[in-house]
């Protein structure tokens, strides 16, 4: 089955389609992946920058607000006077406008003058918040990220400490880190308060990031630009305190924000330990994200946290999957088309081949007219025609050789019979002839007796002739071939019969062909062949008719081509009925009156011609005439046997 041309053809078509499909699929996926995922990664990196910029922007806003407050009229005076009521009022206004979680004012001694919250009026205690001290020490404004310990937060405002406390769901082994979960990460600034060029205090304030959703959501919204995936914004942003998520919109599977979870060890190592930016594909809690992380440094230059943005990879893998599906569908469709095409093509090619195979089978079963179907164009048509020609040629040859075998078998058996009969008859015939003739010699016979005896003698003579004919027929006389000028032989034979023709009133014409090669043949036997043909023609042709004899060079008609000479005897006689055609060469077949012909002429002639490796053909049309063709090879009997 799989060795058939048909399946090979289909398989190769399928193979090519599959190959093309697979290659384009592979390159397509490759390109898409590079393009889509690469694009996404670029975008995330840019988003991270934008996110960082937003954080810085917030810090600057805080400082600006502080500056504005510090320059407010009467503020310096209130600081110098350490008026708690006025300072508290100013601070609460500042906090309200700038959305500060904590704010306070330090005196030049580093003690608190006033601050937000319930402890607002507890004065003259040293400030815990490091940023205010730093601004005081530097005598200039400070801004940035600060880590506030639980003590600092409690000091600032117990409520803040509460907000900063983050439950860590996956405590376990890292129980030690639990302490950090109570610290806070804040965006803060501190500005010195000047009286002229003299610093009279420091104003500080900041926003606690723990659980602060505004920043991360703002970043996320800005970055998502309205794009969502399955109802979720595709972008996410997170602020880490060390490796702990303290503000995030990455969600847990149950939809809660993943506050209190930790980053992967790999990211932690790269970002927190080595201080590098990290970007790439990352498994964040429950989904794959295309991510970027960067370290957050506090005002002392310590790496205290990380900032993260990421987009859901699913969005991009969906695009990829869709593209992949389309590709696979196209390839599949291509293969189906190829299959159909292959089957069609195979049928087109193999249909005629199968027909030819069937036709060959018919031939091997004996048919000589196999059905090869309609003749096609092109090579196949040529094959069909050649096949038909071949079959026809085989048929002709087989018919010819069968005819020849049948004919020679007939001749052989008739020959044996004739020989036996002749041998037996000849002895008694000798007695009949002898005594008839001896009686005829007598002088005392009366006329009647003499007439009777002469009738016996004549009849016996006929018997003798018949027996002689039988013997001639049965004798496969050896050929005595010699190189012969055909035209001379035919001319001489025609000469012998001219008188007979003249008497009958039939014109005999010999048209000798030119440039005839010499032919090696047995002259006397070939002459008897010609004699019989011409006598037959004379017998069949009524007075006024015509007999023409031609000679010409000719190739043998059957299959193998041999050079030779053809002698044609054409008459305008009666013609031969179709039903006699295949009996003509049978021994004893004659239509002539009893005593006129023995029916051995053509049979003997055919034997002679065949022994010369030649053949006799006949063409006849009733009422118009008959043509006999005798073809003889140049090589003669010396040629192939």
């Amino acid at each position: 089955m799989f060795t058939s041309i048909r399946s090979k053809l289909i398989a190769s078509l399928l193979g090519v389609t599959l190959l093309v499909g697979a290659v384009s699929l592979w390159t397509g996926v490759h390109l898409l992946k590079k393009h889509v995922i690469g694009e996404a990664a670029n975008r995330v990196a840019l988003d991270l920058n934008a996110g960082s910029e937003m954080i810085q922007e917030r810090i600057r806003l805080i400082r600006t607000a502080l500056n504005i407050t510090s320059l407010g009229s009467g503020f310096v005076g209130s600081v110098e006077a350490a008026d708690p009521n006025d300072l508290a009022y100013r601070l609460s206004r500042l906090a309200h406008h700038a959305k500060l979680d904590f704010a306070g004012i330090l005196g030049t001694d580093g003690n608190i003058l006033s601050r937000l919250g319930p402890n607002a009026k507890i004065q003259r205690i040293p400030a815990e918040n490091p940023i205010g001290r730093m601004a005081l020490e530097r005598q200039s404004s400070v801004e940035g990220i600060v880590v506030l310990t639980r003590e600092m937060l409690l000091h600032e405002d117990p409520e803040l400490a509460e907000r900063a406390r983050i439950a860590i769901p996956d405590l376990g082994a890292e129980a030690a880190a639990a302490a950090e979960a109570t610290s806070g990460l804040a965006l803060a600034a501190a500005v010195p308060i000047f009286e002229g060029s003299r610093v009279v205090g420091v104003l500080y304030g900041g926003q606690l990031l723990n659980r602060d959703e505004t920043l991360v959501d703002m970043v996320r919204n800005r970055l998502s630009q309205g794009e969502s995936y399955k109802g979720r914004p595709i972008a996410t942003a997170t602020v880490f305190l060390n490796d702990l998520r303290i503000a995030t919109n990455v969600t847990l599977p149950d939809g809660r924000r993943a506050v209190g979870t930790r980053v992967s060890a790999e990211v932690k190592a790269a970002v927190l330990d080595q201080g590098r930016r990290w970007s790439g594909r990352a498994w964040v809690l429950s989904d794959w994200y295309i991510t970027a992380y960067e370290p957050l440094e506090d005002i002392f230059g310590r790496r205290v946290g990380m900032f993260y943005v990421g987009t859901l990879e699913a969005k991009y893998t969906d695009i990829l999957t869709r593209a992949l599906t389309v590709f696979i569908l196209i390839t599949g469709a291509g293969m189906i088309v190829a299959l159909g095409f292959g089957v069609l093509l195979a049928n087109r090619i193999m249909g005629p081949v199968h027909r030819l195979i069937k036709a060959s089978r018919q031939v091997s079963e004996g048919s000589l007219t196999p059905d090869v179907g309609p003749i096609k164009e092109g090579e196949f048509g040529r094959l069909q025609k050649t096949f038909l020609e071949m079959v026809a040629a085989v048929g002709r040859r087989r018919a010819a050789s069968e005819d020849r075998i049948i004919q020679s078998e007939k001749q052989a058996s008739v020959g044996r019979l004739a020989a036996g009969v002749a041998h037996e008859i000849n002895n008694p015939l000798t007695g009949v002839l002898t005594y008839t003739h001896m009686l005829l010699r007598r002088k005392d016979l009366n006329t009647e007796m003499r007439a009777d005896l002469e009738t016996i003698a004549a009849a016996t003579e006929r018997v003798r002739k018949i027996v002689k004919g039988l013997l001639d027929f049965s004798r496969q006389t050896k050929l005595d071939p010699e190189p012969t000028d055909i035209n001379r032989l035919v001319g001489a034979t025609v000469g012998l019969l001219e008188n007979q023709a003249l008497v009958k009133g039939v014109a005999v014409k010999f048209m000798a062909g030119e440039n005839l090669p010499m032919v090696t043949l047995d002259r006397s036997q070939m002459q008897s062949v010609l004699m019989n043909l011409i006598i037959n023609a004379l017998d069949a042709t009524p007075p006024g008719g015509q007999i023409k004899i031609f000679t010409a060079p000719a190739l043998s008609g059957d299959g193998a081509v041999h050079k030779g000479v053809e002698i044609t005897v054409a008459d305008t006689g009666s013609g031969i009925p179709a039903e006699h055609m295949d009996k003509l060469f049978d021994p004893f077949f004659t239509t002539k009156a009893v005593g006129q012909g023995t029916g051995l002429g053509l049979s003997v002639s055919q034997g002679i011609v065949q022994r010369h490796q030649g053949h006799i053909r006949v063409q006849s049309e009733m009422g118009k005439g008959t043509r006999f063709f005798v073809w003889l090879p140049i090589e003669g009997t010396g040629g192939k046997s």
Partner: protein
Amino acid sequence: MKILVVDDEGIVLLSCRRILEAEGFEVQAAPSVDEALALLDAPGAPLPSLLLVDVKMPVHDGMYLMRQVKAKHPQLPIVVMSGYPTDETVENAAIFGAATFIAKPFTPGELLDTVLSVARKGNKP
């Protein structure tokens, strides 16, 4: 003039005797090769001046007889008769020294012509 005719067919022997005796020949007839040889070898009997022999005969055939005769009497002319003359018989006849050949059936005239022409030649040398 004596002629020995050898043939297994009685009618042929009869016919030959009838034709030849009518012309004045003395005719000896032998129905088989063995009898012909016995006649030829008979002590005191004069040799015939011509042999008329059939080819196909049972036991010993005409060719056998010719070989025997030619061995002992090379001068004796032989005429071969056959009812079925093939090229081979004609050739063999010539090889074994037959003077001539006559096909059966023949008319009295044909037989006499043949015999006389051989006898004339045979008399000459």
